[in-house]
C-alpha cells in the first residue's frame, strides 16, 4: 500500500550521474609556443658555451674519448654542485636513470635524524658537499661508458666471500680501477681549472648587485651567484677575475647571503668572520631546517625502554640516542597525538628537551647529595635532569629572573616528581652576595643572543645588532662572576662551574670565559664531552688563554643539534688573582693560595 512517488514534480538535481565531461586536454608548453624561439637564461647560456667548449676538446683528442667523457661529466657535476640548480636535459636523463632513489632517500632520512655524528659523515650525508656530488657523477658516468670495469667493482662489494683466487683477482682489479680513477680525477681537476679559467665565472660588480637587490631581487639568481662566489673564493688566486679584489667578492657574497637567507648585515658579518664561505652556506642551510625532536626520560619515574614501548604503543616512532642513557629521538608522531599531552608526559615520565641541552648537565656531572645551583633554570629541562641524576638527594636551587617563566619551572618540577628543589625568582647576580660559597656546583646557562638556535627562532636573524650582543656579553660576565663567587671549594672534589650558552658568537663565549679567568681564580678543565669542536684560542684580533681549547663548541651543521657552547671551570680559591703570573703558578702546581 505504498504511495507512488510523483516523479514529475521532482525538479532535476544537477547535471546527472553520467553527465561528467572530460576536461579539455592540456598541451605541454613546448608544443604551444614552438614558433617563437625561447630566450635562454644566463645560466643556460653559460652551459651552452661550456658544451661547445667540451665538444671542441673532444674533437681535438679523439682517442681519449672515454676518459674525456668521464671528466666531462665530472666537470659538469662539479659545476652543478657548485654553481647550478638544474641539469641540462641530456645529463638530467642520464642522471635520473642511474640514481637509485631508494638509497638517496635513505641517506636523506639518515641526515634528518642523525644526531651526534662526526663532521665527516654529516658532510657526506648532506649531499650539498662538493666531493660527494663529484663522486656520484663519476660512478654513474663510468657505469654508462665502460660497463665492464665498473660493473666488476659493483659486484666486488657484494660478493666478498668468494674463493681466494677470485679475491686476488678482484683485488688487483680494484687497485687498477682505483689508479684509473685517480688519473681521471686528476685529469678532471685539471680540466676543471682550465675550463673555469676559460669560461671565467662572471660576477657582477657590487653596485650592480646592490641595484638589483633594490629593484627586484631574483632569489634563484642570487642563490646561483652565492655558489659562484663561494667557488671563486675557495681558490681565489686562480679563479678570480683579473683586477678584482677579495674584499669586493666578499662584499658581494655578504650582500647576497643576507638577501637570500634574510639576515641582517651585522649578524652575517659576524658569521662570515667565523666560517669559511662553504661552511657558512652549510651553516645557513642547517638553520633553515628544524632539528629533530628529542625527549629525555625521567629516570625518577620510569626507564627508557619502558617509556619507548609505551610511546610506540601510542603510534609515536621513537629511537634511542646512542650517546645518552636517557635520550629518545622522535621520528614521527601520528596526527592525533600531541607529544606534550600524552598521559606519559603528564605523568612526568619524560620531558621535551633539545639534544644539545643534555650536554651541559653531562659536563656538570653532579653527584648524589651535593648542593647545586642552576642560575637561569627556566623552563627546567636541564635542572630536572640534574635532579634526576642526583636521584632526589642533596639539594638543587633553581633560579630564574622571569616570574612568568618560573611558573613553567614549577610545573615541570612537580610533574617530574622532584622533591629536593628550592625554586626562586632572583636576579642571578645577587647570588654572590646572598649565598657566597654555598654550592658544590653551579650551572650557568646564560641568557644569550640565541645565534645557535636560529632554526628555532627566526627572529634572531634580523633582530640582533652589536648593542644586543654587547648587552648580553656584559650580563653574562656579571653572571659568571656571581656563579664563581657562589661556589665553594673542597679538596679537589667540588667547586665546578659550567658555563653554557646557545650562542656561537665569540663575544658571548670565549670572551666571557677569558674575562672570568682574569677576574677570578679559576681554571678551565675538560668538559668530559667527546663532541664538538674546541674553543677558539686565536680568533681574529683576540688571543685567548691556551686552555680555551678545552671548551666545546657545537654547530648545527656538523652535529644536527642546536649550536651551543659549553665550558667547565674549576674554582681554585676565593678572591681575585693578584697578577697573571701568580695565576700561572697556581695552575702549574694546583696549590691553593687564598688571596
Amino acid at each position, binding site marked *: 500500500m505504498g504511495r507512488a512517488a510523483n516523479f514529475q514534480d521532482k525538479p532535476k538535481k544537477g547535471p546527472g550521474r553520467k553527465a561528467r565531461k572530460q576536461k579539455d586536454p592540456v598541451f605541454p608548453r613546448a608544443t604551444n609556443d614552438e614558433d617563437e624561439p625561447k630566450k635562454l637564461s644566463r645560466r643556460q647560456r653559460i652551459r651552452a658555451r661550456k658544451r661547445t667548449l667540451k665538444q671542441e676538446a673532444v674533437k681535438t683528442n679523439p682517442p681519449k674519448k672515454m676518459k674525456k667523457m668521464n671528466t666531462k661529466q665530472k666537470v659538469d657535476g662539479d659545476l652543478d654542485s657548485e654553481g647550478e640548480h638544474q641539469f641540462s636535459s641530456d645529463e638530467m636523463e642520464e642522471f635520473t636513470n642511474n640514481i637509485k632513489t631508494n638509497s638517496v632517500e635513505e641517506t636523506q632520512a639518515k641526515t634528518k635524524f642523525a644526531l651526534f655524528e662526526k663532521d665527516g659523515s654529516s658532510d657526506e650525508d648532506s649531499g650539498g658537499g662538493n666531493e660527494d656530488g663529484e663522486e656520484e657523477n663519476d660512478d654513474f658516468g663510468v657505469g654508462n661508458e665502460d660497463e665492464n670495469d665498473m660493473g666488476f667493482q659493483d659486484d666486488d662489494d657484494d660478493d666478498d666471500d668468494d674463493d681466494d683466487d677470485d679475491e686476488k683477482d678482484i683485488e688487483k682489479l680494484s687497485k687498477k680501477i682505483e689508479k684509473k680513477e685517480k688519473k681521471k680525477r686528476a685529469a678532471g681537476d685539471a680540466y676543471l681549472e682550465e675550463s673555469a679559467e676559460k669560461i671565467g665565472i662572471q660576477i657582477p660588480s657590487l653596485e650592480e648587485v646592490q641595484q638589483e637587490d633594490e629593484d627586484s631581487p631574483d632569489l634563484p639568481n642570487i642563490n646561483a651567484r652565492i655558489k659562484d662566489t663561494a667557488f671563486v673564493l675557495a681558490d681565489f688566486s686562480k679563479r678570480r677575475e683579473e683586477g678584482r679584489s677579495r674584499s669586493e667578492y666578499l662584499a658581494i657574497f655578504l650582500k647576497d647571503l643576507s638577501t637570500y637567507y634574510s639576515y641582517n648585515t651585522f649578524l652575517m658579518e659576524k658569521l662570515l668572520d667565523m666560517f669559511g664561505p662553504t661552511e657558512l652556506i652549510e651553516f645557513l642551510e642547517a638553520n633553515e631546517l628544524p632539528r629533530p625532536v628529542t625527549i629525555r626520560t625521567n629516570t625518577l619515574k620510569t626507564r627508557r625502554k619502558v617509556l619507548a614501548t609505551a610511546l610506540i604503543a601510542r603510534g609515536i616512532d621513537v629511537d634511542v640516542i646512542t650517546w645518552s642513557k636517557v635520550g629518545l629521538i622522535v621520528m614521527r608522531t601520528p596526527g592525533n597525538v600531541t607529544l606534550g599531552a600524552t*598521559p606519559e608526559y603528564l605523568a612526568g615520565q619524560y620531558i621535551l628537551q633539545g639534544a644539545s641541552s643534555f650536554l651541559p648537565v653531562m659536563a656538570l656531572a653532579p653527584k648524589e647529595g651535593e648542593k647545586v645551583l642552576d642560575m637561569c633554570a627556566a623552563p627546567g629541562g636541564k635542572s630536572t635532569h640534574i635532579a634526576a641524576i642526583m636521584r632526589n638527594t642533596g639539594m638543587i636551587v633553581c633560579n630564574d629572573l622571569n616570574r612568568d617563566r618560573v*611558573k613553567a619551572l614549577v610545573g615541570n618540577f*612537580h610533574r617530574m616528581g622532584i622533591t629536593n628543589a*628550592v625554586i*626562586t625568582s*632572583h636576579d642571578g647576580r645577587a647570588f654572590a652576595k646572598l649565598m657566597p660559597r654555598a654550592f658544590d656546583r653551579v650551572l650557568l646557562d646564560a641568557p644569550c643572543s640565541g645565534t645557535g638556535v636560529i632554526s628555532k627562532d627566526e627572529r634572531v636573524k634580523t633582530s640582533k645588532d652589536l648593542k644586543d650582543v654587547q648587552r648580553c656579553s656584559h650580563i653574562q660576565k656579571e653572571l659568571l662572576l656571581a656563579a664563581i663567587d657562589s661556589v665553594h671549594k673542597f679538596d679537589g672534589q667540588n667547586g665546578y662551574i659550567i658555563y653554557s650558552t646557545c650562542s656561537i658568537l665569540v663575544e658571548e663565549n670565549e670572551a666571557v670565559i677569558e674575562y672570568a679567568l682574569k677576574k677570578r681564580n679559576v681554571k678551565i678543565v675538560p668538559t668530559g664531552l667527546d663532541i664538538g669542536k674546541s674553543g677558539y684560542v686565536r680568533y681574529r684580533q683576540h688571543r685567548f688563554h691556551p686552555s680555551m681549547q678545552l671548551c666545546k663548541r657545537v654547530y648545527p651543521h656538523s652535529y644536527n643539534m642546536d649550536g651551543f657552547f659549553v665550558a667547565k671551570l674549576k674554582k681554585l680559591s676565593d678572591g681575585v688573582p693578584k697578577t697573571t703570573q701568580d695565576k700561572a703558578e697556581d695552575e702549574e702546581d694546583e696549590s691553593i693560595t687564598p688571596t
Partner: protein
Amino acid sequence: MRPLKNEETVLVFTKLKKYIGSNVRALLERSDGLYCFRLHNGRIYYVKEDIMKFAATLPRDNIVSLGVCFGKITKGGKFLLHITALDFLHPYCQNKIWIKESAEQNFMYGNHVYKSGLSRISENTPKYAGVVVLSSKDIPLGFGVAAKATAECRHADPMDIICFHQADIGEYVRNEEALI
C-alpha cells in the same frame, strides 16, 4: 615561610587521612631524613628539613616553591589538595580506581569518572572515600572522591558518576599558571 599552626595541621592531616589513612605517619617518619610541612604564601609545602633551613636564608618574597606543594588553605578555611601532591598520595593510598583507556582522556580534561569508563575499583571502597585514579597501565592520573561504594558500583547505570573529579594531571598543561 612558617610552621603550621595547630588548626592548620589538623586541617591538612584530616584531609590527607581521607586518602592515605594511617599512612600519614609514613610521610613524617622517613628513613632518609626529617621532613616537615611549611606554609609559604598560603600554600602548604612538604619539604626536607635541611632544604627548608637553607631556603630560610633566602629573601621570602623571592622563594616561589620549595620541596613539594601539597595544596592551599582556602579563604574559606578549608584545605584544598593540589594535583602536585599526587606523587605522595599514590603510593600510600588505600582506595584506587582504574579507568578504561577510552575514558582516560575524558578524565584528564577535568570530568568525573562514569560507570561506563570504570575498569576496576579496589574492594571495600566506602562511599565518599578519597580515591586515586589510575590508567589501565597503572599510571596515576589524578584523584577524587568515590561517589559510590564498591558494592553499589555493580548495579550502577553506565552514566552514573562513580568518582567525583578533584584534580588530574591534565592541569599541568591546562592550568600551569595556577598550579600552586
